């Protein structure tokens, strides 16, 4: 292995591509689940709904203080056992590695997104709520059309940053024996003995996707700065 030899890419790219597709689809699914659930969790806390708000606060605190890899393990091994007990016959009901990954990432990201949105909700000017009241808008319309769109706009750079981290974290699915981009590259590297080339290709791919997303963050920040200046 004296010189770099990228010819191995010619035959291995379909496998890498399928790995990348898995990484991207896991990111997309976790983003959607995380945002929908996270918005719900943030609103529950924002409205101070008794008991539920405390439970949500506890959930967010716990999730945010343990590593994702641990949550993946727990979910993979414990949830089948719990489901088995609930179903009555006591035998574990396996939910499969792929489902585990999608559900766990969604639930995990929800905790992070909910914190971002909760802080955003507090930042909305009191006058916006008063204007909605004066116009007799219902609470639903107030949040649906006035408050949440502004929160998402203000928080969009932070949400996107969190999503870039999420994309990079998808490589942790190797613990479930799932093959994402990094997993695919790693297997090929072992197989062909071309570790440097494979890991370089993967690094460049992560770099390209993440920095493109970071450019979007910068553009959003700029656009938001223009929109609020008077």
């Amino acid at each position, binding site marked *: 292995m004296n010189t770099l030899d990228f010819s191995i890419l010619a035959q291995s790219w379909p496998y890498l591509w399928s790995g990348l597709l898995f990484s991207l689809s896991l990111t997309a699914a976790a983003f959607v689940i995380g945002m929908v659930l996270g918005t719900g969790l943030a609103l529950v806390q924002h409205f101070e709904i008794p008991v539920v708000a405390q439970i949500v606060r506890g959930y967010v605190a716990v999730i945010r203080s343990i590593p994702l890899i641990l949550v993946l393990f727990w979910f993979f091994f414990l949830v089948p056992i719990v489901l088995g007990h609930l179903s009555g016959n006591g035998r574990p009901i396996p939910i499969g590695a792929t489902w585990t990954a999608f559900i766990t990432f969604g639930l995990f990201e929800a905790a992070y997104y909910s914190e971002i949105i909760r802080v955003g909700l507090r930042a909305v000017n009191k006058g916006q709520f008063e204007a909605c*009241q004066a116009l007799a*808008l219902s609470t639903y*319309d107030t949040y649906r*059309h006035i408050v949440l769109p502004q929160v998402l*706009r203000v928080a969009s750079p932070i949400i996107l940053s969190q999503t870039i981290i999420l994309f990079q974290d998808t490589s942790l699915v190797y613990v479930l024996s799932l093959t994402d981009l990094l997993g695919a590259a790693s297997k090929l590297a072992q197989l062909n003995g071309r570790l440097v080339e494979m890991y370089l290709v993967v690094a460049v791919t992560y770099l390209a996707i993440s920095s493109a997303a970071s450019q979007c963050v910068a553009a959003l920040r700029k656009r938001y700065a223009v929109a609020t200046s008077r």
Partner: protein
Amino acid sequence: MPQETVSDAAAAPSIVIVENVMKRFGAFTALNDVNLAVGKGEKIVVCGPSGSGKSTLIRCINHIEKHDGGRIIVDGVELSHRLADINSVRCEVGMVFQSFNLFPHLTVAENCMLAPMKVRGISQVEARDRALGLLRKVRIHDQADKYPAQLSGGQQQRVAIARALCMQPKIMLFDEPTSALDPEMVKEVLDTMVELAREGMTMVCVTHEMGFAREVADRVVFMDRGCIIEQADPETFFRAPRTERAKGFLSQIIH
């Protein structure tokens, strides 16, 4: 506390009745047994030193502040704690704020269209027609598809007036509408308000614009420390205020 001077316009049936209203913020009494009746079509200017309760009074009329005691009846509906009553009152009462409070993520036209569509249930086409008509009235229709941040303060406040009018309210409340404006923009907003007054809108305005008060007010209400101290037609009030506190206040604002 007996009602003081009642002007000619107030002889018409009252559209807003404020009776023995109390409002406290913690230990601070913002409104102390306030009584006020506003006749249909009447224009009232509320003035007084800062902290006198004038903003709190008009914010109670559309229940943005909840009064602690007494009764408020707007267009025959008493403001209780029932949401249906509160919303039916808010539909009839438009409000313009000191800080405009336009929705920054919506265009000027969308700002005006949202509530009529969601609350009054009119179609998008009708809402846009109505919005453009009222934006024309406040002379800002050529900016309909811009965002609020692209407009000057005076233009934004005129949009806020149009937005309130789109709900076709019977009463308009103005909470220091010109206080946050640069001096050269005050006139364009006051002109709009004068025009509205000429068309017979019932108006309650908290303002220190005494020129406006002289021009359109049927009655000036002077408040201090949570009470209505004096009320009279503007000519009488400005020329011959009866109380020492009103005299002191006027000497401070008219140089």
